Structures are given as C-alpha cells and as structure tokens.
C-alpha cells in the first residue's frame, strides 16, 4: 500500500514543471524512481516468496537428520533466518510434535488424537489430513535441543502481542545473556509500554551488557540493576561475571552477590516456616481423624492409615470414571471425591467398630493387635483389587504449579491443602462443640455410665464417632493423593506421624492436634536443611520422647475424668 502511495505522489510532482532546465531532467528522474520502486516491489515480493521456499527447504532437512547434532544444525539454520514464521515448527519440535511422513518424507506438525495423529502444515498451520502412528516418525529431541530452541524462541517472540509471552521471552534472554541481544532488546525496550515487561527487558539487557565489551561504567550500572532484581538467577548471572571479570566490575559483582545473599537468607527462613506450616497441615490432616478415635474414644486404631488410603483410592476411582465418561469435569474431581471418600471410609470404619472394636473396649492391647490385622487385610484387599502398582491420580489445573511471593515459591497444591486442613479442623470443632451430637459424644467420653443413665445410647455414639474419625481420615486421603503415591502402602507412611502428633498435642484435645501438627512440622523443616532429612527426623523423635518424659499427657492435657480410663 505505502509503495503505491509513494509512486502516486512522485507522479503528481511530475505535473508541476518549474524550470525548463530542471524540468528536462525531472522526467528522467521520475522514471528512474518509478523503476526503482517497481524493482523494489518485485524484489520484496519475490523475497517473501523465496523466504517461504527457503524456510520450507530448511524444514525439509528434518527428514534426513540422523542424530541430535544434525537436528541442532537445522534448528540453528532456521533461527538464523530470523523469520517469526519458524516459531511454529520449532515449538512443535521442542514439544516432540514434529513428524515426518515415511511415504514422502514431508515434515508436519502433529497432534495426537485417539487413534491417528492429525497433521498440520509446519508453516501455515493448515490441516493436512491425518496419519496412523505407523506411517509417521517423530523427530526426536533431547534437553540440549529443547534449551537451544527455547533460547531461540525467546529472541523471536520478543515482539509478541501477549505481555506474558514477552516477559517469558525477556526472562529467557536474561538467563542466557549474549552480546548480540543488546540491539533487539534496545528496540524492544523503546517500544514497550507495559512497565513490568519493560523492567524484565532492562534486566535482560543488563545481563547481556555484562557479557559484551561495553565500557566499565555501563557494566557497573548493569550490575546494580541485576543486583536489585535480587533472586537466584541474578546470583547465577553475577557469579559467572565475578569469575570472569576483574577490577571494579569484579568487586561490584562480589558486593552485589553478598547483598542478594543476605536478603535471600531472610527469605530462606521465611521459606522454612512456610514449608513447616505446609508439612504441619499434612500432619494435621492425617492426624485429625485419629485425634477423634484415639484422642476422644481412646481406641488405638492401627488401621487409621488404611482409612486414608481408602480415601485416596476413592479419588482414583472417581477420576477414572470422570476420565472415561465426563472428561470435562476433571477439575471438579476432587470436590466430587470428597463426600464419596468420607462415606466409603466412614462406612468401613463403622463396620470395623461394629464388627470388632466394640467387643474390645477397655482392652487396648487386643484392640491394637486386632486393628493391626484389619490394616493388613485392607492393604492386601486393595492390592488384590487394584494391583500392587501406584495408581495415577492427576492434579486438577488449580492444584498444579506455583506462584512467587517475593523470593518464595508457593506451590498451589500445598496452599490448598493448608486451607483444606484448616477448614476440616474448623468444621470438626464446630460439630464437637456446637451440635447436640457433639455434646453427646463429649458426654460419653467424659463419663460413659452417667451418659448412659441420661438416656444416651452409648453404643451408637461410639459407632458414629468412630465412623466420623474414619470418614475424616478418608477425606484426608483425597488431599494426600495430590502429593503422595496412591499405593496400598500409602497409610503406612502416616500412621506413626499421626500418633506422634496426637500424643504430643495431648490426647483428647483437638486444639492439641492442631498445635502439635504445626509445631512438629516447623521444627522438622527448620532442622532439615542443617541436619538432613534422616537426622532431622531422629532429632524430632528424641525431642518428643524428652517432652513426653516431662509432660506425659502432651501439650494440652485434658483435666478431669476423661483421662481416667
């Protein structure tokens, strides 16, 4: 469009001859100009045509590569064209979606369907039919290639319309500094309007300046800019600068690293507290059901872990049904699984109480052995039904990934589990303290015979309390399926910790379980970086033993008749 417009303005000047002398030359010039623009037009036209053909020729080379270094050479050739159109085939290659049709050695972007692979043109993205997996071969990639492609795409997607893509591109360029990046980054900074993107772009430019041969003053400014970023990738960049530079630049880098590290040390402490709280929430979830059956009823239930496992397997079954019948509901799978897990575990708990435990009240040793046996039976039953291998329980999208709070990466699944643990605790507390059923439950635990004389059907209260404790273990299983294995052994890992929490917190007290879980979690996570996971756990156990020596009834001992039994 602009070219034809220019031609028109040129020709309009033709009709205004001013002096004869000049006028004679003008038409010549005009023809010259017209010819030039035409030529230009023609060359640009054929250039874009040639560019596409060239790109296709390069892409076709993927069909003949025999190893990763050859694939890498083709990738380099593609990125060297600097054409944004190469993004599609390169991204497909990085994702392992670039295919070659065996019949004619054509290269396609593929999308795996149910049976066949749908094929698309690598440049235009137009659908190109489909092929069965036997007729096509995948162009294989490895990590080195994926990284090369990611770095190359970083530069190519700097001009993307989506700010998040631009930030990702700038971030990649920050992590892989290259003196050649300064030019494109300068241009991008000049045209950038979003402040957050601009900041990252400037950091990327600073990182690139540090590896270029720019004057020292520029480098010092760059170090200050990167130092202000203050995260681990900044340390990474500055460390390599420190190793290669000398004089004031080296000193500035050293100082900046020290500055970042001292602020990171604070973040580390914050991180330990968060990890501790998160571990505490898992312990609380696992232990809270036990706080009822063991804490309130005094039943040593060794099959408690298996209730958790049943909850996790219920989640698996729910997800299995959703996957095969209602794939759209996958993000809701956990919410659907919650009531079902509660019902399944509560029903099994009820059966155990009615079938075994009610005959054994007041005989803790027998109860312990009987429930241990039940736990083995449940484990083996699950192993027989579902097989011994781990079952895949997927994370819904809102449970995956993480977000940053300052320098702290908070993973969504841990955050949701914390929220969930606290809300389960709140609901349970309400049931125990505010409902008439909770009142009856507390009456029976406080004084069974008196409660019975008041007309409370104590056997039923026992059965329902046990079912409630088991049901809560079941919904804990739904949450734990998100962070742990779903295997028949799932419960084993939690039973010891659960008893530890309940005993430490004080038998018979829900608040004790809460405080116990969180303090154990935080102490554990503070010890772990220094002592290692194995020693950390031992130290925690020793501390608990010492604590129990001092206060045999735990943190919050129940006073009165409740503990007499």
């Amino acid at each position, binding site marked *: 469009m602009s070219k034809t417009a220019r031609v028109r303005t040129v020709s309009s000047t033709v009709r205004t001859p001013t002096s004869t002398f000049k006028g004679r030359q003008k038409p010549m010039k005009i023809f010259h100009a017209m010819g030039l623009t035409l030529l230009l037009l023609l060359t640009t036209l054929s250039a874009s045509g040639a560019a596409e053909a060239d790109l296709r020729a390069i892409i076709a080379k993927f069909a003949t590569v025999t190893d990763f270094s050859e694939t890498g050479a083709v990738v380099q050739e593609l990125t060297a064209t600097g054409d944004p159109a190469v993004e599609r085939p390169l991204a497909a290659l990085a994702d392992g979606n670039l295919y070659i049709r065996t019949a004619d050695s054509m290269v396609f972007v593929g999308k795996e369907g149910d049976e066949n692979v749908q094929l698309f043109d690598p440049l235009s993205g137009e659908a190109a039919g489909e092929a069965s997996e036997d007729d096509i071969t995948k162009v294989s990639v490895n*990590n080195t290639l994926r990284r090369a492609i990611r770095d190359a795409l970083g530069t190519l997607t700097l001009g993307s319309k989506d700010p998040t893509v631009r930030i990702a591109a700038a971030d990649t360029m920050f992590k892989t500094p290259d003196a050649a990046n300064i030019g494109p980054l300068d241009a991008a900074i000049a045209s950038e309007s979003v402040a957050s993107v601009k900041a990252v772009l400037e950091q990327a430019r600073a990182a690139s300046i540090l590896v270029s041969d720019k004057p020292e003053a520029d480098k010092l400014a760059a170090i200050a800019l990167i130092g202000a970023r203050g995260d681990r990738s900044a340390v990474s960049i500055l460390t390599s600068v420190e190793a290669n530079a000398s004089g004031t630049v080296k000193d500035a880098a050293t100082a900046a690293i020290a500055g970042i590290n001292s602020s990171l040390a604070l973040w580390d402490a914050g991180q330990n507290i968060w990890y501790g709280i998160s571990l505490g929430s898992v312990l609380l979830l696992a232990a809270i059901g036990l706080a009822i059956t063991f804490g309130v009823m005094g039943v040593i239930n060794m099959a408690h872990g298996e209730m958790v496992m049943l909850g996790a397997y219920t989640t698996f079954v729910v997800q299995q049904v959703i996957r095969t019948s209602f794939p759209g509901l996958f993000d809701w799978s956990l919410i659907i699984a919650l009531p079902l897990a509660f019902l399944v575990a509560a029903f099994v708990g009820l059966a155990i109480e009615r079938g075994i435990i009610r005959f054994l009240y007041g005989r803790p040793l027998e109860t312990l052995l009987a429930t241990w046996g039940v736990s083995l039976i449940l484990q083996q039953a699950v192993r027989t039904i579902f097989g011994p*291998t781990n079952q895949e329980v997927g994370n819904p999208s809102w449970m995956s990934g993480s977000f940053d709070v300052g320098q702290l990466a908070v993973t969504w699944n841990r955050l949701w589990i914390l929220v969930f643990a606290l809300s389960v605790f709140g609901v349970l507390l309400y049931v125990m303290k505010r409902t008439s059923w909770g009142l009856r439950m507390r009456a029976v635990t406080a004084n069974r015979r008196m409660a019975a004389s008041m007309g409370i059907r104590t056997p039923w209260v026992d059965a329902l309390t046990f079912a409630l404790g088991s049901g809560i273990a079941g919904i804990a299983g739904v949450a734990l399926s998100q962070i742990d294995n779903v295997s028949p052994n799932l419960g084993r890992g939690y039973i010891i910790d659960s008893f530890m929490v309940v005993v430490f917190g004080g038998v018979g007290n829900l608040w004790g379980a809460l405080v116990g879980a969180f303090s154990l979690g935080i102490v554990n996570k503070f010890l772990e970086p220094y002592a290692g996971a194995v020693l950390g756990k031992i130290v925690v156990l020793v501390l608990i033993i010492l604590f129990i020596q001092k206060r045999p009834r735990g943190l919050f001992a129940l006073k009165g008749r409740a503990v007499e039994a």
Partner: protein
Amino acid sequence: MRGNFAKITKIVSAGVVAAGLLASASAKAAEDTIKVGILHSLSGTMAISETTLKDAMLMLIEQQNAKGGLLGKKLEAVVVDPASNWPLFAEKARELISKDKVAAVFGCWTSVSRKSVLPVFSELDNILFYPVQYEGEESERNVFYTGAAPNQQAIPAVDYLMSKDGGSVKRWVLEGTDYVYPRTTNKILEAYLKSKGVAAEDIMTNYTPFGFSDWQTEVSAIKKFGSAGKKTAVVSTVNGDANVPFYKELGNQGIKAEDIPVMAFSVGEEELAGLDTKPLVGHLAAWNYFESVSTPENKKFISDWHKFIKNNKRTTNDPMEAHYIGFNMWVKAVEKAGTTDPDKVIDAMVGVSVPNLTGGYSTMMPNHHITKPVLIGEIQANGQFETVSKTPGLVMGDEWSDYLPDSKDLISDWRAPLSCGNFNVKTGKCGGKGTN
C-alpha cells in the same frame, strides 16, 4: 547367648535335614517336573515392584513349558512370599531349596534381601538369579547378577551428562534414599567425578529416608545449588515410592529438565505409571532396557506380557528383561550340562550367550555378571522413555569398582583354576574386602 546357641543348633539341624532331603531327592531321580523357585515379595512395601517380576517369571516358565519343557520334563514354578521382610527372605529361600528342592531360584529386589539369602545359597549350594541393578562390590559363586553393576548404569549415565549432548554438566547433586545401594553408588560416583576434575564444592550429596514424601526443602536446596552459574544436574538414587512425590514437587516448583535435568537409576516405566509425566518431559533415566525399544524381540515380549497378564496397559521394565535373560541363560546352561544339578549348572553358565530384548546378545561372564548395552532415555509425555543415547557396544559388568580404594585391586573369576570371587591382583591371594 542362649538365643545364639539355639540359632546355631537350628541351622545345623536344618543343614542335616537338608542334606538328607537332597540325598533322598537324588535317589528317586524319576521326578516328572523340574521345580523353579520364585522368591519375590507379594505383600509389604516391595510388593509394588516385585509382584510384577513374579508374574514375569510365571510367564517365562509357561512359555518354556509350551515349547516342551526342559530335558523332557515340565517346569513347575514354586512361588513363596517373603513379604518385604528381610530375615523372612532367608527362611523362605531355605524352604524353597530344602523342602521344595528347586533347581534354581529367581528372586530378591533390595540389596539387603540379597545379602540375607547369600549364606543360605552357599550353604545349600543352589543358584540365585538376581535381576536388579545394584551397587556391586560382591561376587558369589551361587549368585548370577543379571541386573546392572554400577559401571553398566551409573558411570555411563554420568558420562552422558558430562558430554555435549547431555549438556556439559559441571555441578552435581547426588540425591538418594538412605540405604546401601545409593550410599555405595554415590561413593563410586563421587570418586569418579573427582577423577574427572570436578571440585568437591561442585558436588552436593543428600539422603532422605525410605518412603519420604515432603520434598519441599530438598527441591528448593537443589534449586539453590543450581543457581551458581554452572550447568547443574541431579543424579537420583531415590528408591521406590519416594520418587512420585519427588517428581511432583520438581514439577510444581518449576524445575525444568532443560535447566536442571534429573538422572534417575531407580525410576522405570512402572514408577512413572503412577504419575502425570507432562511436567517431567526430558528428565532422564539410565537402564539397560526400555519398553519403547523397538526390536522384534521386544515387541513379541510386550505382546506376550499383555496377553499373559490380560491387561494392555501393564508396562514392562528393566528387571523383567533381566529375568528374561537370566531364565533363558539357565535353560541353556541346563541343556548344556544335561542336568539340573546346581553344581554342574553353575560351571556350565559361564560363557552362555542368549539374545536380550534390545537387539543384541548378553553373555554370562566369569565374574557371574553379564554383558549389556547401556541406554539413556528421556521421559516422554506418555509415560515412556525415549532413548537419547546408547553405548556403542556391550558393557561388561564390573563387580569390584575401579574407583574405590578398597576394591580397585580385586577381580572375580569363578572358572576352574582361580574360582575366586575376590582375588587380589596385588597380593595374588584370594580374599579381599569390598566396601561393605
């Protein structure tokens, strides 16, 4: 003391009974089946891995019987369940050999279970086929190691990471579960890395307990260690169930394989079956076999397996291939010896060569380890591995590591004149010590 004495009398009396039984067994030679013992946990923590191997053995025995059995007799599998309980492994092994009079035993997974049955096998002179990758530093006359020794898995894996294709890694995290296999393997790797010029501050070693599930601190420590401006990789000897939460945490904290790849020695197709592998694409594993290897032998093996187990989704894995090789070697050695007498079969085993599933042949060496190719695979979105590197030839299992001071002078050769599992080439005497 009394306990010890009771134990000794028990062992002695058991030995006497066993000898008597063996004698009576050889007296009535006209037995119509050859019994093969299968010693894998079918309950307890290890059931997750070992049950599959039991099924694989049953399939192999069924196939051999369909081919007409062995020496004109049918094979009969005797399955026992040592229930992931290490002392019970020794008891069950004794039961298999003395009571059931099996001709050979296929079994064990963990090193501690293998160590617990060793005395039983040498005392009663029977054969154990051990199918799992292990830490080395051992060579017994009665044991055939069909899994990988460290030089058939760990060393080539580290070599790959150091190569240009693997990303020229300069900084190493050795992450393992706290027991004998990771500790010994990491000791070997540390010595190996230092011999390649890696500085001590570029190696971080960390251990976690069995079944560990809260990996937040460890993963963020890896992230921190990896931000020192040098290419970093994790070498993971994390075992069994602990892997799933480990990989979930890696995915959630956004550690990508392009930045910090994790090379695992104990993660196979089976372990990945419990995981959504999309965030893990590109993380690595080193084995001698992958289900994705496309050879006619492997395709047949997989389709046979699916038919046998009646489930098209069950995966195959490296220890299954090890049993495949071990069982076929035993069959061949028995045919060669013309008898199932363990003593004669042990001598006939050395030099036996059978096809493996990756398109080559595996041979039993005089040190009772086998030759195998080493494959490096990257995890794919579909839960399979794609081979990204393969050793050009077969690698011979080296039982005594060359990188540990205690074992570098030791060799093993169970052939006639030497017949020694720990011959010291410096002193010229049989009997040296390993690191365990």
